[in-house]
């Protein structure tokens, strides 16, 4: 049996945490892009696209992320793609994030007074210009706090990808725990690493919220 010192455990966990960070970033960027597309459908003028987008959002918000990941993991091979935990994890979290981000930003669009659209139209802007120049910048700006808050949720959600076999922080910690039989230390450290990643973001979201409230 290999002997693990405290520092060995910590070093291995920190190395694995890189994958947690990378996956979070990939899912956030991917989720923002797909989420933007869902947002366009959600606020479009045609009724059926709005309905499709609401259904998409309700589907992802009404089912467990773990099930979404399983479906991705077992469903992708049926489309002829190779099963790989990374692909399934990144895609699964991307779609998950897109639904939540679209809904957050939609609330921002809804919060803008009707006059913003009218003003844009009276300046002769067409629909896409109105969105790009007037509506979206304001919608993003007033939803910055919940967006950062969702990023925290996304980072925590990457823990679930350990279950479909993606080698991130939690999966590595399970392996280390099986080798060292020190669950208290191992999971304590994992919790600490997640806390160090998430707490500053939580505080940042809170500061944004207070700044928004002060205005």
């Amino acid at each position, binding site marked *: 049996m290999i002997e693990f010192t405290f520092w060995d455990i910590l070093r291995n966990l920190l190395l694995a945490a890189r994958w947690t960070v990378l996956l979070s970033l990939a899912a956030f960027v991917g989720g923002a892009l797909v989420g933007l597309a869902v947002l366009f459908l959600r606020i479009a003028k045609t009724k059926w696209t709005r309905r499709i987008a609401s259904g998409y959002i309700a589907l992802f918000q009404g089912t467990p992320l773990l099930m979404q990941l399983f479906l991705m993991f077992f469903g992708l091979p*049926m489309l002829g793609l190779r099963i790989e935990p990374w692909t399934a994890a990144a895609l699964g979290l991307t779609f998950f994030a897109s639904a939540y981000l679209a809904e957050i930003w939609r609330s921002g669009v809804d919060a803008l007074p009707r006059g913003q659209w009218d003003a844009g139209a009276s300046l002769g802007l067409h629909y896409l210009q109105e969105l790009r120049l007037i509506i979206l910048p304001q919608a993003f700006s007033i939803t910055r706090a919940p967006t950062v808050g969702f990023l*925290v949720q996304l980072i925590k959600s990457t823990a679930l990808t350990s279950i479909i076999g993606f080698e991130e922080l939690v999966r590595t910690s399970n392996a280390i725990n099986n080798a060292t039989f020190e669950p208290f230390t191992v999971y304590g450290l994992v919790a600490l690493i997640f806390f160090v990643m998430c707490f500053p973001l939580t505080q940042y979201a809170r500061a944004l919220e207070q700044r928004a409230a002060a205005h």
Partner: protein
Amino acid sequence: MGYSLDFGWLAGAVGAIARGAATTILLIAVTTLAGTFLSILGAAGKRNGPKPLRLAIAAYVEVMRNTPFLVQLFFIFFGLPSLGIRLDPILAAMLAMMLNMAAYTIEIVGAGLDAVPRGQTEAALALGLRPRLVFVKIVLPQALKVIYPALTSQIVIMMLESAVVSQIAVRELTYEADMLQARTFRAFETYFVVTLVYLGLSMGLRRLLVGGGRRVLGAGVS
């Protein structure tokens, strides 16, 4: 594209899925009651308690909100036995869910308590009610009414999150799905069906909570 979907196994699996769903419902029912109770205590302590208690509750909320539920679950189930506390999987799951939910609902209940005008407390005290009675009879019902929608969302989120407790072998819906797909080799179809069951559960739970809330807390609850 040599794959064709097959739902032939479903007929023999209804019992297992129903059993799993029943356990999931049990988990969320216990969590809702215990978690809400705990968060009322926590929110009251955070407002009126002595300073060390207030700090402890604030720290607890931050720690729980900034770490993944899965890690909390593993910590409780695998970590606590080294302190001599050994829990049944289902008890560990309930404890983890309750503690996790309370961290979110303490904030929610706190916001509700803040929303009740100070005059309500003063009026009740002036009528000669004891402080504890003022809290339970006057402030709390009004606070619950304000926060009920947020509480409902949190309960539904917790129900969805409970899928994770399959990882410590609690025989709930996801665990039954894992067993089924191992037996039928129909992983996608199994998880597809179970996902739909979860969707039904979350919609049903939301409807039940909103309807029940209207009845108990009166009109105006959305």
